[in-house]
């Protein structure tokens, strides 16, 4: 493994079924992600983007190939070690938010910290700070059902960050959001990137992909194209997602 890579995958595979019903969701992927890099993975529905993300984050185990995370081979980690990795080193942001409906925004955010056995008062303070950071300081006591889609996704991002992970994985983070909410989320990702956070964003929206440092195109489980973008994020986010006319810049 290259010492400079945070994540490195070689011939990574994930298969479902057998014989004629065999599906190769991820088919021989090679990938290197450097610390602080922002990578976007794009492709049509069912091309294996989300499965790849699940493998990278230790939510699922690969069928073959090798995957290193922070210098460790994920395939050799026990379930307990994988859980610890998810708890301390990886933050997930899902398209469907996946918030606990019975917990307030603050309680949702502090949950991973409590699982990491952070002292309750410290977990609470971290959650409060993060909610302030994503602009939801005044919504900390609200249940998810009382929040808009964009607000829910910002809570989910705050939750992903609460244990200060080295890698944030976002699966279609704006898929359920309108343009204004999409802009809010992308601004947060922009701030995270500026602060040196490593981000992998799975999306099928080209405008979101255009904000990344590197854009990977996936098709039928394999990488078909990889583009390093220069200056993509220097353009206005609003312009990128069509809220503003580029002529107006």
């Amino acid at each position, binding site marked *: 493994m290259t010492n400079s890579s945070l994540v490195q995958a070689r011939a990574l595979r994930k298969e479902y079924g057998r014989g004629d019903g065999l599906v190769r969701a991820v088919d021989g992927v090679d990938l290197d992600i450097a610390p602080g890099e922002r990578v976007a993975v794009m492709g049509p529905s069912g091309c294996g983007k*989300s*499965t790849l993300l*699940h493998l990278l*984050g230790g*939510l*699922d185990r690969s069928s073959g190939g090798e995957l290193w995370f922070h210098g460790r081979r994920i395939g050799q980690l026990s*379930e*307990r070690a994988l*859980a*610890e990795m*998810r*708890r*301390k080193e990886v933050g*997930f942001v*899902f398209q*469907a*938010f*996946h918030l*606990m*409906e*019975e*917990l307030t925004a603050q*309680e949702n955010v*502090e*949950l*991973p910290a*409590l*699982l*990491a*056995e952070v002292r*309750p008062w410290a*977990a*609470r303070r971290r959650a409060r700070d993060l909610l302030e950071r994503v602009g939801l300081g005044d919504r900390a006591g609200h*249940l998810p*059902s009382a929040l808009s889609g964009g607000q829910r996704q910002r809570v989910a991002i705050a*939750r992903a960050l609460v*244990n200060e992970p080295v890698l944030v994985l976002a699966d279609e983070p704006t898929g359920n959001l309108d343009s204004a909410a999409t802009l809010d989320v992308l601004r947060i990702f922009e701030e995270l990137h500026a602060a040196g956070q490593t981000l992998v964003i799975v999306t099928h929206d080209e405008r979101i992909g255009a904000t990344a440092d590197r854009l990977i195109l996936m098709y039928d489980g394999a990488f078909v194209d990889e583009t390093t973008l220069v200056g993509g994020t220097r353009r206005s986010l609003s312009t990128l997602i069509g809220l503003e006319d580029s002529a107006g810049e």
Partner: protein
Amino acid sequence: MSRLFVILRLAGRDLRHRPGEAVMLVVIIMAATAALALGLLLQGTTAHPYQTTREATSGPDALATDFPAGTGAPASPAALRQIAPLARAQDVDGHSGPLPVAFPVLTFNGHADAVLAEGRGNAPAAVDQPELTEGSWVHVGAVVIERSFADALGVHAGDRITLNGRPFRVAGVAVAAAFPVNGVGFLEGSSQWPNPGLIWTTTADAESLATRQYPLGYVLNLKLTNPADAENFADRFDPGGYTNNTGGLYVIPWQMISHQDGLLMAHEQKILLVGSWLLALLAVGSLAIVVGGRMAEQNRRVGLLKAVGGTPALVAGVLLAEYLALAVIAGAAGLVAGRLTAPLLTSPGAGLLGAAGAPQLTLPVIALAIGVALAVATLASYVPALRAARTSTVDALADAARPPGRHARLTAYSTRLPVPLLLASRLAVRRPRRVLLGSLSIAVTVSGIVAVLFAHATLAISQSAGPAVTTNPGLADVGFISQTARENQVLLTITIMLIVLAAVNVTFITWATVQDSRHATALTRALGATAGQLTAGLSAAQLLPATVGALAGIAGGYGLFTAANQGASASQPPAWWLITAVLGTLIAVAGLTAVPARLAARLPIAETLQADGP
């Protein structure tokens, strides 16, 4: 009419679609109705056979006894002089006797028991002629043994016994209605045996068996001109009543004997009735959980029914019809099971003629058992059916899960707990009614177990005290022992049924919790909880309410036993019995929840999140 047809058709289709669940529901309701039916069937089991036996044996309307108190000469002419005039008393229409009665010790096959040996002639008696069911009538050196006593001893015609050490042959086995079956319990505390078996010998043999310690006594069987007035007749000659235990003359009306016969099954009946109500409560709990789970699965079906024009009433009707139909089937099956089991518990009826082992399925028994089955099903399914009927069509079609419950204070407190307990408290509070149901289910079960332990302790004390009150502590009281064995058998049966239903409840509740919290569980793992922490959390979510239920069950069990015992003397079981019951229950709960919890905690995270996402 067409609506009813649609309801029945849809209900029938759904039942056929899930036969396993339908069978499970039937078994749960059946367990409760079978116990109830059994309790009801035993009521009066011995009343009808007593009448039959009384008619077949020319049973007396009143029985006079004169058993000398204390020691003296073996013959007791004074007793004879005292009892004989009753044969000529006003309102007496016929009699047999006075018959000599001795009180020897019978031994058979290593057992020794006290008996009341009544001397008889060869000629049939006008009043109280025992009806032979096996062998022949008495002759010199050969005795006839009352059937329930013979059953308890395991003795048959042709066997050899000894009376006061003298060898005798068993000529036959017979039934009679002059004494309560299985011993003459109402003579308890007299100077003679407290609870002897009954045998018949020749008059000469009876007289020869009298001793200085137990002098000869006499009985006189009386027919009255007005049998219904037997109690008043008895009062005229025996103003002290049957409880006056000073020895001498007693007159016992036939109503008293019939009542005593009826009491033989009183304990079993009480145990079964109390047990059946506990089982019914558990059945409601089991059904509520199963029905709740089914309703959650049927959300989309409800939406489809409504989308194609089904009214809320139709939706509720279909759901209720399923459970009511199952209840009727289960009620009928429970009645059959109760009817088939009853003869196994009515062996004391062997002392009487007629269908002692064939309790009657009367209309009230049928109505009550089916009514309880329907009530159980209605209680468990009414609220879920109503909720389904009120669900909006769009929500139902979207299969939207019922939002979980929230308890802000508990959530705040739980942050200070170790991770498994934090997860357990939060999982539990999502469905507070289910937690309450689980806790109540364990409370009911432990109440039943604790009540059984109290009953066992009381029975054990009675059993050890039984022979001790006799003048010869070395004697066995086979009648008493066989009765306590029967009672123990019933207690054990009820306990096993309670434990099985409670186990079903715990398993259902855990599965329901696991199913309901699949998304939360997967999400928690995605956020870093280990499978072990989740397994422990899911188990603890059942164990915490179970602990509360088990502790409440100790108090409940004592209350239940006290209520069922109606103030009779009770003995407290040793503390370690109760501690073992509570710990055993909690270990059983932990064991039953471990497997589903472990499976749930190892479901694939990504797959579950994608499938069960909100």
